[in-house]
């Protein structure tokens, strides 16, 4: 009996391990392939910084998106919301000359928008897919109207340094934001009552409610936390470029953020997922682009590979669960 108990525990442990780390395995395999193909060019620090940097903006949003999906919802408006928030931030910077006020405005505005999203979803009992699909059109349209179809720019040096300054000369702050957000969202999801309640609500809302959890409040807070990641992303993006464009900025960011979460194992039906794995999802997104460029495949094909990776990653995770 003792022996059987051990072997069952061992098996359960194995399954848990696969559940948790299959995504890291994929990452390692991809890195190995790329190294075989490219050798040290690929393994250089500057290349890795490139990979992470190029996907850090969407990656930051993906952390918030993961929480919202775990809570059983989704947000399709994040791309448009990010550009809208960035345009407000740039406007405030240009009017006041203060980068700090611009950042504060971005947070206030973005969290308010997401609070509104959460309120419509919970109090209005409209599916979040529908609400945010509508909001996405509204945000993008208002943006194009107010910027006359063009963009907006800022030449504020302080604002520009938010993303472009490099610590020690080699570590861009933008990458730091990505890891700081990862740490914060990991902490919220794993080490706080709120995080546990988000999982509970997404897994079985009825049971969560009957355990005395204010389920609507939990969902609204998840949306507001997503709003905060959108604000960080908006500032990071507009600071790096010094501008945003009403039609071309932030396009399909929402789908990329969802894809990173899904590759990381966040389940669309809610209740399941890990922030650390979403982080790997973001790495993988960057790796695909980078590997294809390095081996000289036409980058127009990059989305085909991304699509395949999404499906394969989910297939692998499903398989490891069935075992």
């Amino acid at each position, binding site marked *: 009996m003792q*022996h*059987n*108990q051990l*072997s*069952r*525990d*061992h*098996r*359960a442990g194995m399954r848990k391990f696969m559940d948790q780390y299959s995504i890291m395995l994929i990452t390692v395999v991809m890195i190995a392939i790329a190294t075989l193909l490219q050798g040290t060019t690929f393994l250089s620090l500057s290349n890795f910084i490139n990979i992470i940097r190029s996907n850090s903006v969407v990656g930051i949003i993906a952390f918030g998106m993961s929480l919202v999906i775990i809570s059983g919802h989704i947000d399709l408006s994040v791309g448009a919301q990010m550009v809208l928030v960035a345009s407000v931030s740039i406007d405030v910077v240009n009017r006041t000359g203060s980068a700090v006020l611009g950042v504060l405005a971005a947070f206030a505005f973005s969290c308010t928008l997401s609070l509104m999203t959460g309120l419509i979803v919970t109090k209005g009992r409209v599916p979040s897919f529908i609400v945010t699909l509508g909001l996405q059109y509204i945000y993008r349209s208002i943006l194009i109207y107010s910027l006359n179809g063009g963009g907006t720019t800022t030449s504020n040096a302080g604002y520009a340094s938010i993303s472009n300054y490099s610590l020690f000369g080699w570590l861009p702050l933008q990458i730091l934001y990505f890891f700081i957000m990862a740490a914060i969202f990991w*902490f919220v999801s794993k*080490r*706080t*009552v709120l995080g*546990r*309640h988000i*999982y*509970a609500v*997404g*897994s*079985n809302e*009825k*049971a*969560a*409610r*009957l*355990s*005395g*959890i*204010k389920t609507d409040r939990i969902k609204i807070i998840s949306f507001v936390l997503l709003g905060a990641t959108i604000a960080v992303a908006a500032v990071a993006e507009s600071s790096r470029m010094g501008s945003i464009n009403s039609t071309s900025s932030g396009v399909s960011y929402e789908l990329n953020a969802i894809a990173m979460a899904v590759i990381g194992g966040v389940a669309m039906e809610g*209740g*399941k997922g890990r922030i650390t794995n979403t982080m790997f999802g973001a790495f993988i997104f960057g790796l695909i682009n980078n590997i294809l460029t390095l081996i000289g495949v036409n980058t127009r094909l990059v989305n085909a590979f991304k699509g395949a990776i999404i499906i394969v990653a989910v297939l692998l995770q499903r398989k490891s669960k069935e075992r």
Partner: protein
Amino acid sequence: MSELALNMRGMVKRYGGIPVLKEVDFAVRVGEIHALLGENGAGKTTLMNILGGVVQMDAGTVELFGKPITIESTRSMQEKGVAFIHQELNVVNDLTVYENMFLGRELRTRFGTVDVNAMCEETERIFNLMQVQVNPRALVGSLETSTKQIVEIARSLLMNAKIIIMDEPTTSLAQHEIDRVFQLMKNLAHQHQVAIIFISHKLGEVVAFCDYYTVLRNGEKVAEGPITQEDGLPIDQADIARMMVGQDVLSVEVFRERPLGEVVLKVDNLSVGRHVHDVSFNLKKGEILGITGLLGDGKEQLVRSLFGDLPNDGGTIELCGKPYQPSHPSHGKKSGLGFLPANRKENAIIKDLSIQSNITIVCLEQCKSGPALSFKLERQMAEKAREELSIKAASLDNPITSLSGGNQQKAVLSKWLDANPSVLILSNPTQGVDVGAKNEIYAQIMKLAEQGVATIITSGEAKEIMKICDRVLVMYHGRVCGELDRSQMTEENIMILSTGGACTVDRSEAKCSTIN
């Protein structure tokens, strides 16, 4: 009668090295209702899952009607005439009754379109055979749970099943429906030569309706035999229960007299929608109050509104002397109520979380050190609950779904322990739980009552109420139509009141009002 419909020999199944079936032989004759008995975890569901093609066996042979077969898939077993009616309802709420009946096997007209009329007629025919009135075109979602179950049974009849496996089919049915379904089952078995394998924890049903029994314990067959003994009398329920658990449990006395305190909960003329009308009662500290009645009596709506899960429409509630108007379950919890809802899987289990996280979900705030959760405090809380209720789990970090039904129920009950509720409401606390775990749960309820927790238990089983309650309210069509104290509690009195009949107990003792 002697021909074997099913003959399973030397069945072996291991899960990760743990044997759950150890060379079990199991045979069912044509035309018999065969009760497959055992505690949760005894292996009966695994054995039936093998037969249904849901899981693969590690060793053994299976013969159907004398022919050896290999079991490939669920579908192939269905084609061989094996129907499996699971414990959980397996109907699509958004489809009509006839669409559910013919799901995946729709009848077609010559033109290839679905033949609605033919399907409705066929559905009608099956229902006539079952002697039930259900509109084939009704939306399944609009039906009562019991009727949904009937639709499922009807579906297996439609498939011309030769062997029907029923896994606790009666847990959601009212008594008169259970009787009707069994009458039909008897008819099917004895007249139409169908073999029925019946898994149940309700030994009363088994003795009343089955022909033969097999008892499994820890993956081994420990007994089998005809229900009717050589002396012509049915086998004693207590004997079967003893075989199931290996010890004498049915006669364990859990109820203990104890002094009751002051009134904790006072409910006056409470109404909830069209389900509950003008209900009034008091509940004292340390008292265990039962609320019973037949399906549709409103007891579930009553307790859900007390906890704040349903809004009430008038009436006053006083909790510990203060007015209490619950607006949300979180409010009920904050006010000192605890609630274990009925239908564990749907309402109580958080399937993606671990055993530990399910136990600590109610009192998670107590596990904080600073803003962060302390794993140590959380582990302590869960360990305490595991010990208190002897929850059998390999590790508290395993998913809650890895536990057997009885242990799941103990886990969801234990989550309220650290909340120290002054009033604990338990809906069907032993639903789908085996005999051993049942007694452990009763003992825990009694222990809490002795510590002064005022408890409300809703249950459709008179035996359960009689086992543990100080007092019972019997509801009929949303009204309390009678109240019995412990000395007046008999199955007969409870049944008379819950069917709306006039009360035969002393009127000066019990408050009775005749309905309609």
